[in-house]
């Protein structure tokens, strides 16, 4: 291939602290506009910021989990620019002395492992939100203003949309496991700026880059990376030049669009924030934060495979959301048949989550209830098919499992004396299937089992059904 793409990402992540970065307003998403504001985050005359210690801890924890060094000395700077969502007309950020430096994320794309270096992680405050009405009015909601952010700046080590996706997925998963962010992209809790350039393969110097800001969906990020890379190559191949600029990704048209030139000539006039003292961290404090880091996804995969005998593929699925992994571990403490539990999580729970379009963290089904269902199935009180049905019900409704089984008569039918006559009837009334089976068509066997199960409203013990059917068929073939 003649061209290669060089990509660096700046990922903004909102920290899920209780209060904002520089004041004590609640840091919550989705409240009534302008109800979570005070003189500090509104930039009223005379108000001063104070540092949220929890936010520093979360940021340091993120840095440590992403293999960064946490600086013993860091401090804040002001980034000056005018915009209606920025009440002080400067954002408190970190330019000269960021909190974390020199980390990396190891990604795996189709078995190819690659280390993506992280240049730095710095802390800053989020801006407010603008709402433009059709009538040309703009309204401002300052609730988001001052929510703690970390910006994770990668080196330009990424080469395509697959790597970008792998990097972002790993980053998101790590932060979710740390519990430092909800990472809800649809709520803007994780946004990526994509810096992208292309160059000829044999050239050492990087090409001119463009930036696409505030991307918050994996799908659009993939499309944007692919499209922008193709656009730049096409421009260069046709003898054009790439201009260093910010471009807006147009989802509908599927192309990036140049923004007004003015947006691109910002001189942010950074200078040290005089209202805040430097952050000085003792190594003991950093060690304490390090010790608070929970087992991350890749560590849990190993544990599930080795300790619980879960397949590697299933373990990956279970650990794909921290809440799901926590759910699984909670279930494991409550039931013997871990294998059945992992199977039903991977097949049933994951499907139900997907159908409802929700995250495991928002799931109503509790680990206690799920374990109860597994244990009933494991003991043979209900069959696995029934267990699946009850899981689906318990997923959306608050039911008492034993009551539900009783009132819907879902108990498993184990008695051969009950099953055998029904099985005989089914075989008698399906002579075609019987003859098919006899002539070696194994599919007919499955059909007969299905028919018998149906007679019992699928509540019969499948093993017993098999035994009874085999007995009948053996008799038939012996009789001929």
């Amino acid at each position: 291939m003649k061209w290669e793409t060089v990509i660096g990402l700046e990922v903004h992540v909102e920290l899920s602290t209780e209060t904002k970065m520089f004041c004590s307003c609640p840091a919550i998403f989705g409240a009534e506009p302008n109800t979570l504001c005070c003189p500090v985050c509104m930039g009223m005359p005379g108000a001063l910021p104070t540092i949220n210690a929890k936010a520093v801890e979360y940021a340091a924890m993120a840095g440590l989990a992403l293999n960064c060094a946490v600086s013993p000395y860091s401090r804040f700077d002001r980034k000056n620019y005018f915009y209606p969502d920025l009440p002080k007309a400067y954002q408190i950020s970190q330019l000269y002395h960021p909190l974390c430096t020199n980390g990396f994320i190891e990604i795996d794309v189709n078995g190819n492992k690659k280390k993506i270096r992280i240049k730095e992680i710095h802390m800053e405050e989020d801006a407010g939100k603008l709402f433009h009405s059709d009538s040309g009015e703009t309204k401002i909601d300052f609730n988001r203003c001052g929510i703690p952010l970390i910006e994770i700046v990668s080196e330009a080590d990424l080469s395509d949309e697959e790597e970008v996706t792998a990097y972002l997925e790993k980053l998101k998963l790590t932060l979710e496991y740390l519990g430092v962010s909800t990472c809800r992209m649809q709520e803007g809790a994780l946004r990526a700026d994509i810096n992208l350039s292309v160059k000829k393969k044999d050239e050492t110097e990087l090409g001119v880059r463009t930036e696409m800001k505030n991307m918050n969906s994996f799908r659009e990020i993939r499309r944007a990376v692919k499209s922008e890379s193709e656009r730049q190559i096409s421009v260069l191949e046709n003898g054009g030049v790439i201009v260093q600029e910010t471009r807006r990704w147009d989802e509908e048209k599927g192309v990036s669009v140049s923004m007004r030139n003015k947006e691109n000539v910002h001189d942010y006039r950074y200078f040290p924030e005089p209202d805040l003292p430097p952050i000085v961290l003792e190594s003991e404090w950093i060690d304490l934060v390090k010790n608070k880091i929970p087992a991350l996804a890749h560590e849990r995969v190993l544990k599930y495979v080795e300790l619980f005998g879960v397949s590697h593929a299933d373990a990956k699925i279970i650990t794909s959301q921290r809440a799901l992994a926590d759910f699984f571990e909670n279930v494991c403490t409550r039931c013997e048949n871990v294998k059945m539990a992992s199977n039903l999580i991977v097949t049933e729970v994951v499907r139900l989550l997907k159908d409802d379009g929700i995250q495991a963290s928002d799931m109503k089904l509790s680990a206690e209830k799920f374990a109860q269902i597994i244990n009933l199935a494991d003991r043979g009180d209900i069959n696995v098919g029934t267990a699946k049905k009850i899981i689906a019900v318990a997923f959306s409704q608050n039911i008492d499992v034993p009551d539900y089984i009783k009132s819907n008569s879902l108990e498993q039918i184990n008695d051969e004396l009950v099953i055998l006559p029904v099985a005989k009837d089914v075989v008698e009334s399906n002579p075609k299937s019987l003859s098919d089976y006899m002539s070696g068509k194994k599919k007919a066997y499955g059909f007969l089992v299905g028919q018998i199960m149906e007679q019992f409203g699928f509540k019969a013990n499948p093993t017993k059904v098999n035994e009874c059917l085999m007995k009948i068929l053996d008799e038939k073939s012996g009789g001929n």
Partner: protein
Amino acid sequence: MFDITAVKIGEKIKKGELSAVDVTVATIDRINALSGHYNEFITLDVQGAVAQAERVQKGIERGEFLSALAGVPFVVKDNICVKGMKMTCASKMLENFVSPYDATVITRLRKAGAIILGKTNMDEFAMGSTGENSYFGATLNPYDERRVAGGSSSGSAVAAALREGFYSLGTDTGGSIRQPCAYCGVTGIKTTYGVVSRYGLVAHASSLEQIGPMAVDAETCAAVLDLICGKDKFDSTTVDYNVEYLNSISNDIKGLKIGVLSESFSDKTDKTLGDNVLKVCDTLKYFGAQAEMFSMPITQYTLPAYYVISSAEASSNLARYDGVRYGLRSNFCNNIEELYVNSRSEGFGDEVKRRILLGTLVLSAGYYDDYYKLALRARETVKKAFEKAFEKYDVILSPTTPKVAPKINSIIKPIDMYFGDAYTVAVNLAGLPAVSFPCGFSDGLPTGAQLIGPAFSDAKLLNIVHQYQQITDYHKKTPECKKEGQV
């Protein structure tokens, strides 16, 4: 009533000899009689003050409000937030702005039972050294109405000089407390950086400024500091440093070593003014102090470094006045760009614009290293020079200003106005405490002396000035005395 000090008034109120209400009403009457002349007030809250006084008086009768200044009325520079009261910063930009919260110093003074009378005139956003840069007009000097009161805490200095309230709060970014104190013949202290909370002070240059008291004498300043100092969780640049100011005021100053800053007695300084300041040494020798001239050549870099750093911070601090959320919004805007440009063009006065432009320039790419960074280095050099001087001397003495109060409209070039701060800005760059106090008169106009000390020597400085004021009476003179030919 107005020839006794704030602390004495406080004692009388506590003893029941005076009521907070009577004192407040009498002070308001005095203000009403005088304030028309000098333009020292922007907002007066007569009803509010009387209501506060009634509440505090009842409290005192119940045994509450035990502070030295309970029931004693005071005035506030109009760049300090008082909840529910207009806060204009003497700017058209904030002409109708009402503060939604109390500054920490106000919270603390309210808790101590102090009575807020109103807000004083000043240079717009505390930028100026004459008191002329106010949207509401210049503040006049009570000793000579043709002259300026000094700035930027002009109204607070005049109110203190005229005893319109028993003390004033001012703010000092580069001399804004000390310089008008010198011009109006009152005492004021700029504290060590971090001693007084800046929460609720409208920021001009955050790394330089402090709120401080301005009053008739050092004793009053000490009593106020006892109430407003100390760590504040809303201002992370405050320090955890506690000392009893009023209780230290009469300490022995025997053996005190005074370094007299030779550079401040050059030909740039008025002869009589300089002589008055030198006489302070003789007076303090009475208490066993020693004095000698010394040189600190660094002072020549302080003015440029100060204006670079203060303007840089101001350009950022004043960016929030954009017409979007509060303050003036231009009627002539079709888009956000015009809203910004026109609101700021209409709302700010010339001096403020000048500093915003200067500050924006020195922080811009290509200029940052040559100006801002260089100024920061000069600032470090100034700090070190002071540290070195304080190895040898306990305090440094200089005039507060090179000259007495100039005539109104006599300073045409901004740079000439900036030279009025030549002796005060170094203190702010180094974060040190300094007191300005009256040391005599020159042609009937007050002259001010400045004592600078090492960090956290605030109580010591007030102690020295208090001793000085025990055997001098310059601080007791009032502008009315002058009119009666007593000066």
